[in-house]
């Protein structure tokens, strides 16, 4: 047994106390814990196995156990000779270190606004990438998981939406190297490159929010910066740890649809109400077993997904060299059939101190991800109205159609791409596909190989000065394999369709920094950083698309096809050349000042060079004598007032050649052409964010309660807008201009408390809330509004000065007329207009009287209600409040975590709802049976008199206010119950620690939203101005997992 340090001073009647120190997280032992006798200088340290041995004097002795990253614990020795201690992780404490960009800083010294999340908090959640786990963890961070499609990037916002045309996604820095964000799939699977980072390998996530914390990233800082730090080895014995879980996922709150009998009754009634459709017949036939067909299409589309994940890591080190090696495998099934995610990854980190002055190290990470899908889910950006969108097919198809014919073959129409319906319906224009066939025949897979690596050398020529040079690469290679069968669906028109698409994104980064830390006179602490950095990205992509298959049995791109064409060509490059500096100063850890400066030159701008800065100041009042004199320091362990101001930029998402006007190539009957194709702007520059932030950070009762309050405001100017010119000007694209303006302001509040803190029972509680207000203040001349369409077919978001971005823009309704069952619209003037789909002779579709006899004439002379003429700015889609509440309980060896997240004060356009009540042959939600007007005197009905083919009264033909709902929700995001086996038991099986747990995600949703999930987004993560739309989107899933974490 090796003792690293033992006090040897002898006292009379001394006796020896021994024991093992473990963590309350997982029961693993903790080396290097300082053990001291309170009030004396006696001390010892735990060894590599967490064991200690200390001699204590007789009498009433108290042992103090302390270690960085854990709460200090004091235990009375009394007559015990063996004292095992379980230390509690205090990741929330101010003593923590935060990553600040090109360095770290003690959180106590930080004057910028930074939120930190420990990797352990998200490691065991069954997510594909870490961001989904950040929801509710730290104030200012808003995460909306857009759909139930696996590996779809979440809508990730820090302190609101800060751009219109460019990205609003934060900059993600992984171990010092910026990485790719977004969706790099060319098909129907989603491929978020952040999924390459195994959540198990993440040590910490630090979120920089204000100008002071982000300015060091200059032109890319406007949306905040997220620093991911992966795990590194610690000196000591080799540690091996295994983490694994397995689980099941299911859908929840799916709409309840009509069954076959209800469908027939209801639709036949609707047919009877429309004399023009009187020849339409619906027939129920029998299946192969002689039972009437009654298909639950949702069962054809959704499944119970089974997932599992395994991670093994080995870490350790000597005095001079530390290493961390990890490998992981996960295979996850989504709730949509054939939507799978499979990742195989490895990470190796090493740091080696060559001499006293020189340290070298680096990391290499490789990840291979398979993002699999058969066909469109209808849930990713642009897919909402796909005829083959599975989310849509699950609700639109009538239950009287069957997935299979009675001979066992797939039910498809031989004359078009659609499902076969001729036996059951006399309607000829059914264009929707059979999802069972699509799932059986098609595929749309994306495979990612992602290499993230860096190497550094660090030299400390003398105390205080650190020189560091880091070279990093991030290579993202994406390979797509898409096949659409010629038999049915999207591949029908082209007689089959296959694509192979390859994309290669390569970034290299070289950073050189010099940092000098010096204390003068024991009071003045300086830390100066200067650095230089260059980053280059190149993009290449190409694809082969083949159509007209030679043999229907073929399913591969390499088989025989008649037509060959290119697809998905990508070519780009950009370069960012930067110099930066930072000066941190504090006087006796009482007064703090910091300044950050960065100059960026970026290739994709017209005006290349920009200078960005942030300054902050802090005052730790507890260090003041008057505070101490007032005995306030007995209550407040810390109380810091801080403020920051600065100017940063946004260039995320600018095309590589945007400043240039260019001529592109095309074809004219096989001959090459060259045409003016892109209008540039040689004066294009970054978008500017002027950020101010004022806050208080405090700790009460020895940091038993900590908290922070911050007010922030971000004024965004020079927003790049692609300003449309009159079409008669004949420009091939809209020229980009720095012209719009917007702001976000708000208040963040976070409270963390160790509510109960005894050796056997602990309860910690972390609550945070963010209040945010977004308002667009200027667009461009001639551009009064900016409309954002959903999948090119429906426009429900309209951005206009004076409103928050992407406001819902819909036509108002006034219920259903109790006497006639007609939908009442409210026109632009506030007048009621009665609508009937079928207008008998002498009557009108749109009438100002319920009897239909008075033709409606709009102020501009139109005779119908239209969105263009009558829609109003109706409701806000951006949450006014959001946050989370995390509670962790520990009782002896049991632990329980309960995590709630919430978003409040926003609205969602439930476009799906219009489809659910469309009176064409589409199936309907069951509430039509009770909520549709049936007879005179039916009051307060939601839906108009069912008239076959009516697609106006329900909102299919234009967005209506009746389909807008409050989205406010509180979700029981995560509940985990764990049990840590006692170490006494484990030593016998040579294990260091073992914890088993069960966990549930999205167990309950408290909301008035009628759809499956208010936390969705049809327009996806990348849309800044198109949030708050739920159009045929597959909701999030509910997942139960069982897991093991074992240490050896």
């Amino acid at each position, binding site marked *: 047994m090796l003792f690293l340090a033992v006090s040897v001073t002898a006292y009379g009647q001394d006796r020896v106390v021994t024991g093992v120190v473990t963590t309350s997280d997982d029961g693993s032992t903790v080396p290097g814990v300082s053990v001291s006798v309170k009030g004396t200088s006696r001390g010892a340290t735990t060894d590599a196995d967490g064991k200690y041995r200390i001699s204590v004097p007789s009498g009433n002795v108290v042992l103090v156990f302390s270690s960085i990253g854990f709460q200090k614990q004091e235990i009375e020795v009394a007559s015990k000779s063996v004292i095992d201690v379980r230390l509690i992780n205090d990741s929330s404490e101010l003593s923590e270190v935060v990553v600040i960009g090109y360095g770290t800083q003690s959180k106590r010294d930080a004057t910028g606004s930074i939120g930190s999340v420990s990797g352990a908090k998200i490691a065991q959640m069954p997510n594909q990438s870490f961001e989904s786990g950040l929801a509710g963890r730290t104030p200012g961070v808003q995460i909306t998981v857009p759909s139930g499609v696996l590996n779809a990037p979440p809508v990730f916002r820090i302190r609101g939406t800060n751009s219109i045309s460019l990205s609003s996604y934060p900059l993600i820095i992984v171990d010092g190297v910026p990485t790719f964000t977004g969706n790099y799939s060319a098909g129907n699977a989603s491929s978020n490159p952040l999924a390459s980072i195994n959540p198990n390998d993440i040590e910490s996530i630090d979120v920089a929010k204000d100008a002071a914390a982000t300015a060091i990233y200059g032109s890319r800082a406007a949306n905040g910066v997220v620093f991911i730090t992966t795990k590194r080895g610690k000196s000591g014995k080799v540690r091996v740890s295994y983490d694994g879980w397995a689980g099941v996922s299911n859908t929840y709150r799916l709409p309840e649809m009509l069954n076959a009998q209800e469908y027939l009754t209801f639709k036949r009634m609707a047919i009877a109400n429309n004399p023009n459709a009187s020849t339409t017949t619906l027939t129920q036939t029998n299946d192969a077993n002689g039972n009437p067909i009654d298909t639950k299409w949702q069962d054809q589309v959704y499944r119970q997904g089974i997932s599992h994940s395994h991670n093994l890591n080995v870490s350790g080190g000597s005095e001079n060299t530390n290493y961390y090696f990890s490998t992981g495998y996960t295979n996850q099934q989504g709730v949509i059939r054939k939507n799978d995610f499979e990742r195989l990854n490895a990470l190796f980190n090493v740091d080696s101190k060559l001499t006293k002055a020189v340290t070298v190290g680096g990391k290499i990470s490789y990840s291979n991800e398979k993002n699999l899908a058969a066909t469109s889910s209808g849930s990713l950006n642009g897919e909402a109205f796909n005829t083959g969108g599975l989310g849509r097919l699950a609700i639109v198809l009538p239950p009287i159609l069957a997935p299979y014919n009675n001979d066992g073959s797939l039910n498809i129409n031989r004359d078009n791409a659609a499902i076969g319906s001729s036996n059951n319906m006399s309607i000829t224009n059914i264009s929707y596909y059979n999802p069972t066939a699509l799932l059986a025949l098609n595929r749309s897979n994306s495979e990612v190989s992602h290499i993230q690596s860096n190497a550094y050398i660090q030299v400390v020529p003398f105390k205080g000065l650190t020189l560091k040079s880091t070279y990093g690469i991030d290579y993202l290679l994406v390979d797509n394999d898409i096949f659409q069968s010629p038999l049915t669906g999207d591949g029908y028109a082209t007689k089959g369709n296959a694509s192979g698409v390859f994309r290669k994104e390569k970034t290299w980064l070289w950073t050189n920094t010099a940092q000098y830390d010096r204390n003068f006179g024991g009071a003045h602490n300086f830390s100066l950083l200067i650095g230089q950095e260059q980053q280059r990205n190149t993009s290449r992509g190409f694809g082969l698309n083949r159509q007209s298959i030679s043999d229907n049995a073929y399913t591969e791109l390499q088989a025989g096809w008649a037509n060959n064409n290119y697809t998905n060509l990508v070519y780009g490059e950009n*370069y960012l050349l930067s110099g930066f500096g930072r000066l941190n100063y504090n006087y006796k850890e009482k007064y703090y000042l910091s300044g950050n400066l960065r100059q960026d030159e970026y290739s994709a701008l017209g005006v290349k060079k920009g200078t960005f800065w942030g300054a902050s100041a802090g005052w730790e009042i507890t260090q003041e004598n008057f505070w101490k004199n007032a005995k306030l320091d007995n209550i407040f362990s810390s109380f810091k007032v801080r403020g920051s101001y600065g100017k940063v930029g946004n260039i995320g998402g600018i095309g590589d050649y945007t400043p240039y006007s260019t001529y592109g190539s095309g074809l004219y009957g096989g001959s090459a052409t060259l045409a003016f194709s892109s209008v540039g702007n040689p004066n294009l520059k970054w978008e500017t964010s002027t950020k101010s932030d004022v806050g208080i950070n405090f700790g009460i009762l020895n940091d038993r309660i900590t908290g922070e309050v911050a007010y922030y405001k971000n004024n965004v100017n020079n927003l790049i807008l692609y300003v449309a010119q009159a079409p008669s000007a*004949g420009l091939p694209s809209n*020229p980009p*201009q720095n012209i719009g303006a917007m702001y976000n302001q708000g208040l963040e509040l976070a409270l963390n408390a160790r509510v109960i803190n005894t050796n056997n029972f602990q309860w910690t509680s972390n609550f945070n809330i963010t209040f945010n207000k977004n308002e667009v203040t200027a667009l461009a001349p001639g551009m009064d509004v900016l409309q954002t369409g959903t999948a090119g077919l429906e426009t429900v978001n309209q951005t206009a000065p004076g409103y928050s971005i992407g406001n819902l823009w819909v036509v108002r309704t006034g219920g259903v007329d109790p006497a006639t069952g007609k939908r009442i619209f409210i026109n632009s003037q506030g007048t009621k207009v009665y609508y009937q789909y079928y207008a008998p002779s002498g009557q009108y579709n749109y009438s100002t009287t319920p009897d239909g006899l008075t033709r409606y004439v709009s102020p501009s002379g139109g005779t119908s209600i239209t969105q263009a003429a009558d829609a109003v700015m109706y409701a806000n889609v951006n949450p006014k409040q959001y946050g989370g509440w995390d509670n962790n309980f520990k009782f002896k060896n049991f632990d329980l975590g309960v995590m709630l997240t919430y978003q409040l004060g926003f609205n969602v356009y439930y476009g799906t709802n219009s489809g659910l009540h469309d009176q064409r042959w589409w199936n309907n939600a069951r509430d039509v049976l009770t909520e549709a007007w049936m007879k005179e005197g039916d009051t307060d009905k939601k839906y108009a008199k069912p008239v076959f083919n009516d697609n106006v009264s329900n909102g299919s033909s234009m967005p209506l206010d009746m389909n807008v709902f409050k989205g406010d929700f509180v979700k029981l995001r995560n509940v985990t119950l764990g049990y840590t086996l006692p170490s006494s038991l484990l030593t016998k099986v040579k294990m260091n620690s073992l914890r088993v747990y069960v966990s549930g995600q999205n167990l309950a949703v408290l909301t008035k939203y009628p759809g499956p999930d208010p936390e969705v987004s049809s327009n996806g993560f990348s849309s800044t101005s198109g949030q708050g739309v739920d159009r045929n989107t597959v909701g999030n899933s509910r997942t139960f997992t069982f897991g093991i974490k074992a240490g050896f």
Partner: protein
Amino acid sequence: MKKHFIYASIFCLTATGLASCNRDYLTPIPETSVSDASAFSTESRITTQLLSVYEAMKHGNFYGGRFVIYGDIRGEEFINETSNLVTGSDVWSLNPTNSASSVERLWQYAYLTINKANIFIEGMEATGNTVVGNDAGNRYIAEAKVVRAVSYLSLLQYYARPYADGNGNNPGVPLRLTGIKGTGQSEIARSTVAEVYAQILKDLNEAEAALPATYSTSNDNTTRAHKNTAIALKTRVYLTMQNYASVVTEANKIVSTAAPFTAPTGVTHALQPDITTIFTNYTTAESIFSMPMTANAGDNPGTQNQLGYYYSPTVGNKEYSLNPNGIIANTGWTATDKRRSLLATNSGKTWLNKYKTPTTFHDYVPVIRYAEVLLNLAEAKARSTNSVDAQAVALLNAVRNRSDATTTFTAGSFANATALINAILLERRIEFLGEGLRNNDLMRLQQTIPAKGSISAKAPTENGYIWPIAASELALNPLMKDN
């Protein structure tokens, strides 16, 4: 300590030495496109740019598809089968709104073409002619002017009152004659119909003077403008303006006085013996000007713009069937007429099957063919002489007999000039079914658009006889006035 300084020095030297930045990366040169500064710098860039002016016209939203489709479905020959707004059900119903995609896109793509022509003409005048020489340069400019003229003529057919309504004094469309490459040039008022026609004729006249008589390949003779193209188009322009004397003058340049009718100079245009040849062999001497297509990506009309997709029952989506009460019901159009072989029956309905290349539907799209010039001349002769003109009858017979040898008209077949004119108009409906001419034939004579299916007739005085102006133009061009 000394050792540490050595480390530090080595480190610094290496770091600063290797990390010296590459400032060239800050001004990347686009490798997949050409900068506007050098677009006219080489002969190859000039010739490819010239073809891009045609390419713009060929776009599926313009002459490569929808312009031609709208020209037919506005009329009475087709029945909409799918009620799909995306495929022009509102155009067919004669009630598209200002923001309808048909109204917006045709406007947009026609002006895109016009701007490309303007940029090309200006660029040639500024630098291009010195690169390729004035001879070639002026020929190229002339080609661009033909495209510009066709584009303006196309716009007038939908967005302005017919010339005959007030002799062109009604609002036409904005006349843009300079290339636009940046912001700030949105505002422009509408010129009158007459002013736009004057510009169309100016372009065509200048083009006729400068264009080559022929090209070396039959493909170029069909897909690029030559002298006879400009002349043929002028017969259409003048006919649209009801300037029949000028139709005769122009047509006489390219139509011999007696059958068999051929063009005496330039490309020897003539009718093909079998009309069906034209829709399989796209570059015969009958096809004066057509939009070429291939199966290559981007070289065909694109999704839901293709003629075959709209009409064909065998390869298309059957968007429009033929109106059983339309021209196909005409008993004078005999069952053995070769042109009936371009129809097909399917699901109990009759369909147009002129365009039947399966996906990617890369049939060439006709702009003007010799048969039209003959019938333009025939009609102009009959109208200008107000008699049963012998050459007019002969021209009509040339078109009819080619497909139907059993029907031969004589002067005695017609009671008067009106009867002859009506026969010619009827022949146009048969001959050019699905070639986009029907709308203009109704408009130029200010005829009521006949009823079809569930859609009632539309008189010239009624709202919807011409299209409204695109909503985006009204929003972004304050000087623009709606129809």
